[in-house]
């Protein structure tokens, strides 16, 4: 079972939940920029949430399914179609062998995640299938997809097989989506800045009061240097009130660090494990997925949250995900 890559798209990589357990060796975690979106797509096709799928950036790939498949797409609407028919987001779609999945010109910028039943079965490197481009590690030969690649697909779960049978399209090389779907988290309304909730970071108190105020009250825009490592922002200059030397310490997904130039960087999936820049703030886990949609040009605003709120939001998100897993299981039994 495999998927042929006819066109690779702008930047399509194999990702999962990331390479955990090696940060003490300096190994970058990587993984999906919106782990919740990938986990949701996985659950919709009966996969364990940590199975590997594809992360699609702006212009999606063209893929031909060489065998019957069950797929789900989550994230931004990148105008996917299967043999010319629109593919709805957030639901399982049964696909017959020979069908071609293509993407059009997206109306808005963004990223999407594609899960297939069985998962993308590239070799596991240090506990994960995630691609880390800078070190050429994991994924398909450590790089983004290229035309002519063949993506191996793993073993389907019983849930995946049952869902496929219940949807099974009659015509060869066609697809059939389920009538039910997983509610997606709302994306930013067009025109309004993306609001991202954050906690004060370890060095927050060292920043000048004016910088603290500007951070919460002003808008920032995502620069063209934003990539999977970090979302580089431009906005009012932010400065510490002290010049004390900082010693390198851990940074994580969502850490807002401020280099000497005063323009903040929000660290993302391909972040380094430690850093020496002051950590002004930390984006809450429940809002990390929003950053995945913050491509260059996006306006962004930070909103102060408390640790108790952040943890309650994270737990609510996890409960919804577990409820979805149960619902998909029930649907597969119908």
């Amino acid at each position, binding site marked *: 079972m495999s998927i042929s890559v006819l066109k690779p798209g702008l930047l399509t990589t194999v990702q999962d939940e990331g390479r955990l357990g090696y940060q*003490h060796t*300096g*190994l970058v975690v990587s993984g999906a920029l919106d782990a919740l979106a990938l986990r949701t797509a996985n659950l919709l096709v009966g996969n364990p949430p940590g199975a590997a799928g594809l992360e699609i950036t702006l212009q999606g790939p063209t893929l031909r399914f060489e065998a019957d498949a069950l797929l789900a797409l989550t994230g931004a609407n990148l105008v996917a179609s299967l043999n010319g028919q629109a593919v709805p987001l957030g639901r399982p779609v049964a696909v017959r062998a020979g069908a071609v999945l293509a993407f059009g010109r997206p109306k808005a910028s963004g990223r999407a995640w594609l899960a297939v039943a069985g998962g993308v079965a590239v070799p596991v490197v*240090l506990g994960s299938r995630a691609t880390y481009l800078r070190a050429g590690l994991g994924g398909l030969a450590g790089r983004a997809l290229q035309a002519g690649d063949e993506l191996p697909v793993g073993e389907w779960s019983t849930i995946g097989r049952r869902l496929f049978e219940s949807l099974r399209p009659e015509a060869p090389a066609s697809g059939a989506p389920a009538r039910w779907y997983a509610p997606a988290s709302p994306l930013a309304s067009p025109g309004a800045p993306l609001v991202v909730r954050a906690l004060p970071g370890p060095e927050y108190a060292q920043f000048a009061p004016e910088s603290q105020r500007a951070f919460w009250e002003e808008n920032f825009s995502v620069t063209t240097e934003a990539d999977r490592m970090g979302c580089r922002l431009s906005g009012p200059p932010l400065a510490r009130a002290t010049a004390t030397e900082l010693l390198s310490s851990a940074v994580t997904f969502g850490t807002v660090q401020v280099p000497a130039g005063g323009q903040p960087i929000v660290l993302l999936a391909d972040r380094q*494990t430690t850093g020496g820049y002051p950590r002004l703030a930390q984006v809450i886990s429940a809002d990390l997925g929003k950053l995945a949609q913050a491509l260059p040009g996006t306006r962004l605003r930070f909103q102060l949250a408390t640790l108790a709120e952040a943890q309650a939001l994270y*737990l609510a998100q996890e409960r919804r995900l577990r409820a979805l897993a149960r619902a998909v299981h029930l649907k597969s039994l119908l």
Partner: protein
Amino acid sequence: MADSLPLVRLYPLGDAAVVLELGQAIAPATHQLIQAFRKVLAQRPLPGLREVVPAFTTLTVYYDPWVLSQASEALPYEQVASYLQRLLPAAQAAATAYVPGPLVEIPVCYGGDFGPDLGLVASHAQLSPEEVIARHAQAEYLVYMVGFAPGFPYLGGLDAGLATPRRAQPRPLVPAGAVGIAGAQTGIYSLPTPGGWQLIGRTPLRLFDPGRAQPSLLQAGDRLRFVSISEVEFQRLAHVH
């Protein structure tokens, strides 16, 4: 224990990590306490702990708030923070019985094409290149932490006389294995990256190899010594590794 309490701070790094700050400056004693804490935590793990990342003065503990929420109604952060607080006396006791880490020898071919800045470091230090090599290879270094890039060691112990400012213009690409000096630090590039350190030599060893069960050659706590080798020896070792 009371006299050491003011040195210790616990604070969140977001909603899924706790930072344990065990000192204020780069010092072997702080490093030993961090290593002892890692050991105690590994022996007495708390369900829901994901991984720990040691740094110069901190130990950052990543956790899964969901797993902790299944065990208690208390805020997951509070559960982890109070657990770490309770382990502190055991860690302090373990630090007094600290056993130094293994000594790792790093073969380095100094100077020439491998160390294009050796002459500059020598003239800055007012030493001959041979004296720079002798002093660099004489010292025993301590791996305080591994970070910045996969397998990149932060080393303590550079002879103060060898301290040299960074290059004004960083090189667009420094090869993996390059050994350099930047200010009072010395280090080894683990992956090819842009970099501004003064390069004095290169090791044929691979500091990071994803094909190894332990991908990083060096671990926090290791001791390190550079061994000067010839270019012929470099080429031979490069084939082996």
